[in-house]
């Protein structure tokens, strides 16, 4: 950059200011951000860009981070399209404000497909404004300019840094989105590379980031105790004794309040109801937890849940023998099932309730400032939430605080997995705060966290099928027996309609029966898919064995012709992509190779959350039914990968989480009481059982989609199919610890 150009640029820039600290005064970051906000039509806008004159590019990330890596991935898309150098980028979390950022939510592995276009529109807009600024400063045609490495470079080689251009850029007209063009993916320098998580340094230094770490001046601490049986209501408690304990400031009963559960998001509506209980407020966390352990409450259990897992199983087994249930898909199957020339099989599968057990137990900090005659009440909330904006609704419904008078601070989440979509814990914190002077932090114990979960729902599937003498699947008769609450299928129970048996499976009849329960259920990493995959993909393996066919070949044949079941719909199966991942997983795992004594390989494929994923597990089983998963080979097609390190991490984590869950975890309830209290009764897999995980991405020319969930569902059937291959024992129920198989 020569001096003349520099001087001219600075003259122009300084004309915008009143002099003085020009470099600082010409930042105009918020103005640029506002301009971009208007540009991309605010409702789908998910970040702000600011460029300082020193060249630092700040990108605000508005989607909550729970370990899925979105706080790194979305800013990568903006930076790429801008022509920024990643080293110049600093990522900060945004405020919670739906007017500026649209829906700030994380769930369903949708953040990438939902935001990709708006992120790159924002990046491209910023780029065009910087190029416009350089065109003025250098007095050259903008067609001769290119944005790269945080600079705008002229054909001649002359360049101006983004920092130097920031002040001018903000005065540029906002590009019409229709005129924007986007980078050729072949020219990407950030997207598709491995970028480490933007908060890693803070994490390894132990800096406060999580909701449970929130500490505001004059803060009190709270614990809350609900009835061990869901729906029980407190009548009285040992109030004098509790209030006399060290560090306790107050203790009181909260009555149930259904209004807190009202939500504008249909899948959340009716869930976050305030349950009755006893609140204890004190000087520090331990004081209130200690008092909680000394609490004696008299409960009215007349309306409490009577749900029992053993009773649910009995009912399901009775239903399995019947011809009842709602017909979801109908094909004539009886003749083929009964034909003597065919081979038929009848199997009853079951899967348990499981808990989310986010490592960070639920918590929420609330400062409620009561209204006066002249001023309405207001509230500030610090919350680890997958949908932080939704807590404003809770405040409105529960305490009548207007949404614009609620300030929400989103914190990093110590895990989410779907649990932090429901804000019952925030309702409790608000109700406690409304009776407490100053801010108060509610922290759940691990036992609260397990007992008060919105569980991954358990369920049953009665499966019948027949194969012809030629080894073809000629009848598939599936009876899903799940659960409903108030007559409506709970989240994750029943078939959604995009399962293989509901779409492309030949000769399939599908029925569904729902048993009414009170137990709270919610979204748990890949809802519905995480259990149906186990049944569908295990049973298909049973059928390929029955038919004497190679399992990979059998699965590929079932996919049929290469086709997209609904062209352009990312949530529709593409059989071509399915075949490709099955073949790749088979090839990379050495499918069909001779295995040593005691070893077996198992294959499974599942399509969900817009992802096509196949997995092969290599499993060793010893004579005492100890099993070791040596290796899992994964083939993934989610389109082009944004952050290779983040994507790989999600797959690795899904394999470990899937294995931990299918091998070890089960929630049971007896007469409405959850039987597992803590990790000693609800274990998590430890490091020693971790398999080698070999991941292969097919970066097909489709839309990029999310990876927080879909690598988990195929793991369980891949492992149980491998155990069958190793031992000849078919496992039709999880967890494996209950089936006599011990993970080592």
């Amino acid at each position: 950059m020569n001096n003349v150009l520099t001087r001219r640029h600075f003259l122009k820039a300084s004309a915008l200011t009143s002099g003085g600290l020009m470099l600082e005064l010409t930042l105009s970051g918020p103005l640029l951000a506002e301009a971009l906000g208007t540009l991309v039509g605010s409702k789908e806008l998910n970040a702000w860009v600011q460029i300082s004159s020193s060249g630092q590019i700040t990108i605000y990330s508005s989607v909550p981070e729970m370990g899925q890596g979105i706080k790194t991935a979305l800013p990568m898309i903006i930076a790429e399209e801008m022509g920024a150098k990643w080293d110049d980028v600093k990522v900060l979390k945004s405020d919670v404000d739906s007017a500026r950022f649209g829906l700030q939510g994380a769930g369903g592995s949708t953040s990438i497909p939902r935001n990709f276009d708006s992120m790159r529109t924002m990046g491209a807009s910023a780029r065009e404004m910087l190029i416009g600024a350089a065109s003025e400063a250098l007095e050259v045609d903008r067609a001769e300019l290119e944005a790269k490495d945080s600079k705008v470079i002229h054909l001649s080689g002359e360049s101006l840094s983004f920092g130097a251009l920031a002040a001018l850029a903000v005065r540029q007209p906002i590009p019409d989105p229709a005129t924007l063009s986007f980078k050729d993916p072949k020219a990407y320098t950030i997207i598709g590379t491995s970028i480490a998580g933007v908060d890693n340094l803070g994490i390894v230094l132990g800096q406060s980031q999580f909701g449970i770490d929130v500490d505001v001046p004059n803060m009190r601490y709270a614990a809350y105790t609900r009835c061990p049986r869901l729906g029980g209501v407190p009548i009285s408690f040992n109030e004098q004794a509790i209030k006399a304990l060290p560090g306790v400031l107050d203790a009181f009963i909260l009555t149930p309040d259904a209004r807190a559960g009202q939500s504008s998001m249909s899948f959340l509506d009716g869930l976050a109801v305030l349950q009755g209980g006893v609140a204890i407020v004190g000087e520090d966390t331990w004081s209130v937890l200690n008092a909680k352990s000394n609490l004696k409450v008299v409960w009215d259990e007349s309306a409490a849940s009577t749900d029992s897992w053993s009773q649910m199983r009995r009912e399901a087994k009775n239903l399995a023998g019947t011809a009842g249930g709602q017909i979801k898909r109908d094909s004539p199957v009886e003749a083929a099932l009964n034909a003597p020339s065919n081979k038929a099989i009848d199997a009853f599968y079951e899967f348990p309730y499981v808990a989310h057990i986010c490592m960070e137990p639920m918590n929420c900090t609330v400062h409620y400032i009561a209204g006066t005659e002249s001023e309405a009440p207001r509230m500030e909330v610090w919350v680890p939430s997958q949908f932080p904006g939704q807590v404003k609704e809770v405040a409105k419904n529960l305490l009548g605080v207007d949404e614009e008078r609620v300030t929400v601070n989103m914190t990093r989440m110590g895990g989410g997995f779907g649990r932090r979509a429901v804000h019952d814990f925030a309702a409790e914190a608000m109700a406690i705060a409304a009776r407490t002077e100053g801010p108060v932090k509610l922290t759940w114990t691990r036992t609260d966290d397990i007992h008060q979960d919105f569980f991954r729902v358990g369920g049953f599937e009665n499966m019948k099928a027949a194969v012809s003498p030629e080894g073809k699947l000629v009848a598939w008769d599936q009876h899903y027996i799940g659960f409903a609450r108030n007559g409506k299928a709970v989240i994750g129970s029943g078939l959604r309609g995009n399962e293989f048996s509901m779409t492309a499976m030949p000769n399939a009849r599908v029925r569904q029966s729902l048993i009414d329960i009170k137990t709270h259920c919610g979204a748990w990493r890949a809802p519905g898919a995480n259990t149906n995959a186990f049944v569908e993909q295990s049973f298909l393996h049973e059928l390929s064995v029955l038919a004497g066919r190679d399992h990979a070949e059998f699965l590929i044949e079932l996919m049929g012709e290469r086709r997209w079941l609904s062209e352009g719909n990312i949530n529709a199966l593409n059989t071509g992509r399915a075949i490709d991942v099955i073949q790749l997983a088979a090839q990379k795992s050495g499918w069909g190779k001779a295995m040593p004594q005691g070893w077996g390989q198992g294959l499974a494929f599942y399509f969900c959350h817009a992802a096509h994923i196949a997995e092969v597990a290599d499993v060793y089983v010893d004579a005492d039914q100890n099993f070791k998963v040596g290796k899992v080979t994964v083939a993934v097609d989610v389109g082009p990968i944004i952050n290779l390190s983040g994507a790989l991490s999600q797959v690795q984590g899904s394999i470990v989480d899937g294995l931990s869950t299918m091998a070890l975890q089960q929630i049971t309830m007896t007469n409405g009481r959850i039987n597992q209290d803590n990790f000693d009764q609800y274990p998590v897999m430890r490091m020693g059982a971790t398999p080698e995980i070999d991941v292969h991405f097919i970066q097909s020319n489709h839309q990029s989609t999310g990876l927080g969930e879909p690598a988990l569902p195929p793991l369980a059937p891949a492992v149980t199919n491998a155990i069958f291959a190793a031992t000849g024992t078919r496992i039709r129920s999880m967890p494996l610890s209950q089936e006599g198989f011990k993970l080592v």
Partner: protein
Amino acid sequence: MQTYQLMVNGAPHAVTSEPDKPLLWVLRDHLKLKGAKYGCGIAQCGACTVHIDGVAVQSCVLPISRVSGRVTTIEGLAKNGLLHPVQSAWIEHDVPQCGYCQAGQIMSAAAMLAVNPAPTDVDIDTAMSGNYCRCGTYVRIRAAIHAAAEARSVEGEAEV
């Protein structure tokens, strides 16, 4: 209530507390050191792991009245503006997902490397068996510990 003298990350603290209050809550609520995390309260998950005289200890079940020795928390692991090799390796290998358990993981790993500078996979699995990771970052933790072991052997330390 009694007053206890604690040495935490090289600094002395006088803490007035009930004798049975676990060290974890003293660190988090009294000393405002939030790096050690609450996960279960029964020494199952390891999120609360700190060092006492260099040994990894689960602070959620250790009453303050029984703390004797110098306490080091994740906040005190980096020294003189330099990251501990385990911390550097954690960044290099992009280990964290949600990050909640990682302070405990790092403290367990650092304590192991102090006595076993060249651990095998089995050594690592054993030393790390007290720490849960619900996100499933075990593959990367193992790799990062090996990398930290190598870095220590060539005395590589990165600036904070």
